[in-house]
């Protein structure tokens, strides 16, 4: 187990090196730059060049790349070019907003998605199943920007029940969490339903019934535990995706989260900010996937955490 984790962490480091390299050069390959004359029209060219030089941007790209690594290995993500403060400060300052909203959305997705899928499977073909299917179809097909606009129009503008923006009260979280979790709920419900139907047909479920196990325990212990393994696999990408923030939802509801700053940093050509957030997101994905794989091995003893 420990050897496996170490091995996976080493592979994660390799992933990160590739990610950083590719992101760095792609970013520099984009036309324009943080202080290019085409973007800052009101500032004299000589001044822009001086600013760029002060950040080391006049050096060849490979040299900048090596410098970046040097700083990175000292734990320094650099100074944001276009906002006040260091990138480290920016990430630690804005990540908590995304994490809080995203964490709630993960919890909400699991607490709603799994029971919905379970009920749909148990009442296959009945009203509850069809309603879940309808909800799942809507959840998967309606894009989050449409959903967030519709919901805030209805509940904020028309009914005036919920605030339009900000995170000042718990009421603000309702729309945010609903918008973020509808898609995962749809996915989890569908996955739980289909794997639950499969599990209920299995011979070991019949064995459990032949042992006189109560219907509730047959469903919850013998079938659901088996049915949840695909959901656990999905958990890694889901947590990584939701906790790191969604640009659409964060900008729609004016939340100072990381997702919002990530997109802004790209349009700003804020190189250090882009790299910082790419590295942070990448690390998050690597760790979440590792955790969900370990979790799966704990639940399912047939999954071997081997070295190959």
């Amino acid at each position: 187990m420990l050897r496996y984790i170490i091995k996976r962490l080493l592979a994660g480091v390799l992933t990160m090196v590739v990610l950083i390299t590719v992101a760095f050069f792609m970013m520099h390959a984009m036309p324009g730059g943080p202080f290019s004359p085409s973007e800052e029209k009101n500032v004299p060219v000589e001044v822009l060049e001086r600013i760029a030089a002060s950040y080391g941007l006049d050096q060849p790209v490979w040299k900048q790349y090596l410098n970046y690594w040097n700083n990175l290995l000292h734990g320094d993500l650099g100074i944001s070019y276009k906002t006040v403060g260091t990138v480290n400060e920016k990430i630690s300052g804005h990540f908590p907003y995304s994490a809080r909203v995203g964490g709630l959305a993960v919890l909400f997705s699991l607490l709603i998605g799994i029971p919905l899928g379970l009920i749909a499977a148990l009442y296959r073909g009945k009203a509850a199943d069809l309603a879940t299917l309808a909800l799942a179809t809507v959840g998967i097909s309606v894009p989050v920007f449409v959903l967030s606009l519709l919901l805030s129009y209805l509940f904020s503008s028309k009914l005036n029940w919920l605030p339009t923006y900000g995170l000042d009260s718990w009421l603000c979280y309702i729309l945010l969490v609903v918008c973020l979790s509808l898609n995962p709920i749809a996915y989890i419900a569908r996955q739980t339903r289909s794997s639950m139907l499969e599990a209920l047909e299995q011979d070991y479920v019949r064995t459990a019934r032949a042992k006189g196990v109560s219907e509730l325990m047959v469903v919850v212990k013998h079938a659901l535990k088996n049915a949840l393994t695909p959901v656990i696999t999905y958990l890694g990408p889901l947590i990584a995706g939701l906790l790191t923030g969604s640009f659409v939802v964060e900008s729609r509801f004016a939340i100072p989260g990381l997702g919002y700053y990530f997109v802004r940093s790209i349009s700003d050509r804020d190189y250090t900010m882009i790299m910082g957030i790419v590295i942070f997101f990448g690390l998050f994905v690597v760790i979440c996937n590792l955790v969900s794989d370990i979790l799966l091995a704990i639940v399912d003893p047939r999954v071997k955490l081997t070295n190959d």
Partner: protein
Amino acid sequence: MNLLEVKNLNTSFHIGVGTVQAVRGISFHVEQGESLGIVGESGSGKSVSMLSVMGLLPNYADIVADSIRFDGRELTKLSGKALRAMHGSEIGMIFQDPMTSLNPLFTVESQLTEPLRIHRHMDKRQARQRALELLRQVDIPNPEARLKQYPHELSGGLRQRVMIAIAIACGPKMIIADEPTTALDVTIQAQILELLQHLKQETQTSIIMITHDLGVIASMCSRILVMYGGTICEQGNARDIFYDPRHPYTWGLLNSIPKVQDAPAGKLIPIKGTPPDMLKPPAGCPFSPRCRYCMPVCRAYMPPTTELSDVHRVACHLMHPHAPKITREV
């Protein structure tokens, strides 16, 4: 005394295109301490009839019976809860495929102690102690280590032994074994049969052995039901079925067993044709389309049951006094 008595059991499945009549009006009984064999080919209704008795069929199955009495109680009138209290404690079940019959996510200990904790209300320690005894009883070496293992770490034969241990955990009055050896290697088959026989002698449990293998039946069972097309076509003591069979289907079954002395020249004689479509079973004898001795009456009317002795009964029109006298060709 009859431990189990089933009268006029009918089981059908409603599926999209119609109704599959898997079991059509069978009646039988099992005596205390007796081992009853049920033979028949796939789809003859042997497993379904037993699962109907247990109430373990999915809810789209329609089970109708005049009476199913087990140990003095009428099962058709029992609540789900009362039935569950019997499952695993008074009736144990062993299934065909030990690879899929155990839950892959739970240890042997968890699965083996479950019936003990449910029915005997044992605590963890007592249940563990009893589980060790049970594993020894089914001849599993090194039971302490086995308890901690998961099904995928055991061989097929060991898994089936674990299934048997689960079935006998609470000292049942009856064990239903549904093709318990079909999925196993021949050598393991023999070991499992020996084990079942040994347990039966030790505990005086009744066993219902469902199989399509007459060899298994011959070594285990004192009385035999031969099923075809959801009906019982012949029943009797093992001696009746093997030495004085009367139904052409039973003849066909016996002729399709390989005999050592015939090899290599002797040929097996298969039964021509395919089993009946249970969506539209034939109006008459279900075996009539494949029967060499089929008469017009066979296609039109279900044959009545003729009692040749107290136990030997045959459902065949050839038993009618006016029917041609046909003897089995061997």
